[in-house]
């Protein structure tokens, strides 16, 4: 039990997908202008990362490793992820049409969110067991959602202040993200990487 808790804390906070591993930065900069969109995106991505990581783990173990096709990993994983995104899209459309409307164009683009492929590659390269891998993927995506929501909150405040014209837009967002990354560095040392 303690071991599982350690895995979760390490994946979600210490080695945060966005702020420590630099994965999924496009969505981090692109859809964090409002808290509710960021939360929706976090929710959808959590679902995609967990489902596709489980599928990728199975593909790696029973298909690629079993038949010595390791070199096809990138191509197969991206196909699995694209299908998982399509599946998520259909599910969300059925379960919550409002969320579907809100996420709009961003939903199919989760395919090119490198956090999804990145987490899948990390867990097969770490040779994790299935349960370990699933927990790792789920906790990583929770960490992703957490940072997305925190950053969206910061940017909502940021939109109300006067920023020098040269810094307006992305530059000030980067600098704020840098400070957030410093804050998250405080977690290092809680759990082993």
């Amino acid at each position: 039990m303690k071991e599982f808790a350690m895995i979760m804390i390490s994946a979600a906070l210490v080695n945060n997908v966005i702020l420590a591993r630099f994965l999924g930065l496009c969505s981090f900069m692109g859809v964090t202008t409002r808290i509710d969109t960021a939360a929706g995106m976090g929710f959808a991505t959590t679902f995609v990362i967990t489902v596709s990581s489980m599928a990728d783990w199975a593909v790696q173990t029973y298909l690629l490793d079993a038949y010595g096709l390791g070199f096809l990993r990138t191509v197969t994983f991206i196909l699995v992820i694209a299908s998982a995104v399509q599946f998520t899209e259909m599910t969300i459309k059925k379960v919550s049409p409002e969320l579907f409307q809100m996420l709009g164009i961003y939903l199919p683009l989760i395919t090119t969110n490198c956090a999804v492929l990145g987490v899948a590659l990390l867990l097969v390269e770490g040779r994790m067991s299935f349960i370990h891998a699933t927990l790792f993927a789920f906790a990583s995506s929770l960490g992703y959602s957490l940072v997305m929501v925190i950053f969206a909150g910061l940017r909502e405040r940021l939109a109300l202040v006067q920023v020098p014209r040269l810094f307006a837009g992305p530059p000030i967002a980067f600098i704020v993200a840098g400070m957030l990354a410093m804050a998250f560095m405080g977690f290092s040392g809680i759990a082993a990487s």
Partner: protein
Amino acid sequence: MSNAENSNQYSTIVKDGLWDNNGVFSMLLGMCPTMAMTTSATNGFGMGLATAVVMGASSYLVAVFRNQITTEVRIPVYILIVAAMVTLVDLAMNAWMHELYKVLGLFIPLIVSNCLPLARLEAFAAKQPPFPALLDGLFMGLGFTIALTVIGAVREIIGSGTLFADASLLLGNSFKVIEMRLLPADMGVLMMILPPGGFIVTGLLVVAKRVLDLRAGKEIQMAGAHAV
């Protein structure tokens, strides 16, 4: 098209890729390797070159098959083409540039989900003949390389006081001459090598490009922060 028009178009493509529409500093695409692989100028340079090769090759292929790819299935086809090119680069680097391959690690396969190649395929290669598409992919990639090398250089100089450290190890012995030490070893600001430094240096360099563009009398681009 006459020759003059042709060469005019080509020079626009080159200028767009290297500076005016620079993938990192103007369009803010491909941020993940930009932040992760710029702890030193050498890493940034290697990552940029790998991306440039993938971009050139996949732009060329997409442009060759642009009339056969229907709009409905274009995105999966693009992703598969990019993934195939990435696999080739991945295997080639593993074989011939093994040290660099070990350093870049995860971020070589992740070129597949870099927004920059896909954005150029969609915006340029899908509508243009093969040669301009190849040129666009290549020079957008080189612009990316320049950006990564500059960010890497700034972080490396402030963070560890060196420039192009380990270049001979990662790129080959002939690069030994560019290895430099600019500051004494104990003056490095470790924060610049760690994640926060990546964000802050990139932010400040975007501002620097805006300043240069303003000096040159150009409109500064407020856009950016593109979709996912």
